[in-house]
């Protein structure tokens, strides 16, 4: 069992990691309007595999609030959309991890990236545009989301091992 102090340290580091990634990613130029790597999602994935669904959910809310405050987008339509995507990703990855232990970090990340795009586009189509025609861009969204999901899965695997290594070096 992970000592409580180590868990708090690791969650704190993950929160900082997520907020910094989200803040750094926001002003990056985008090739396509929806194409965003979603690097902050790797913090959710790491928290999920290390601590379980509930702490990962806490991290999703925490990093969304902090990044929203930092970027000045808190409670804006884009912020709600981002939070919805992050929550969808969390639910999909938690479900995949709970129902099958066969997925690797890349597989879990793929589920998260796809669910995030699915829910965000659904909400945008229903509430913002009011037209199901928006679903026509879904294949294009997934053409960028799935490679991003693979990338995030790889980064998460490396970052998880590094996080565990630096927080257990002097205690074990």
């Amino acid at each position, binding site marked *: 069992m992970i000592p409580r102090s180590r868990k708090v340290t690791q969650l704190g580091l993950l929160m900082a990691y997520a907020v910094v990634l989200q803040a750094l990613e926001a002003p990056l130029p985008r090739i396509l309007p929806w194409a965003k790597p979603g690097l902050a999602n790797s913090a959710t994935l790491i928290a999920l595999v290390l601590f379980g669904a509930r702490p990962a959910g806490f991290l999703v809310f925490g990093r969304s609030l902090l990044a929203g405050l930092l970027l000045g987008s808190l409670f804006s339509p884009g912020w709600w959309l981002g939070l919805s995507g992050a929550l969808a990703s969390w639910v999909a990855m938690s479900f995949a991890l709970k129902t099958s232990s066969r997925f690797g*970090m890349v597989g879990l990340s793929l*589920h998260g990236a796809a669910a995030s795009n699915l829910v965000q586009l659904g909400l945008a189509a229903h509430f913002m545009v009011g037209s*199901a025609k928006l679903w026509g861009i879904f294949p294009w969204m997934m053409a960028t989301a799935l490679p991003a999901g693979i990338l995030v899965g790889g980064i998460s695997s490396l970052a998880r091992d590094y996080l565990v290594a630096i927080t257990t070096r002097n205690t074990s």
Partner: protein
Amino acid sequence: MESHPLGQPPLTTPADALALAFWVAVALVPWTGPFGQSPPQSLRLVSPGSNRELPLEPGPISTQGPLGTTRIQVYEDGSVAFEDSPCPHQRCVAAGSIRSSSQALACLPNRVYLELLGGPVASDLDGVTQ
């Protein structure tokens, strides 16, 4: 597949390829059929001095143009076609029927245009302001 020393999920497993295949298949769904296009529920009919949005109910519709009366037919399956027009070449009639949202037909000589709309028929009010 190499297991992780801490019992954690490894970087990748064969199941990840299945996850990728599954989401690629889901991604292609909007391109495989009418999904993504809302079914037409109304039609817009434009003729000289008139721009109407009508519910898509089976039956004939007539409208006046500079050459005379154009007759349009809405069929039971939701498709719409020019049935008869006073235009010289009858190209609008020969164009056949349309059935998907955003498809349109026009009779340019008689200045009649119609298109199928996906959403519900709008109310009489375009908007409210104070």
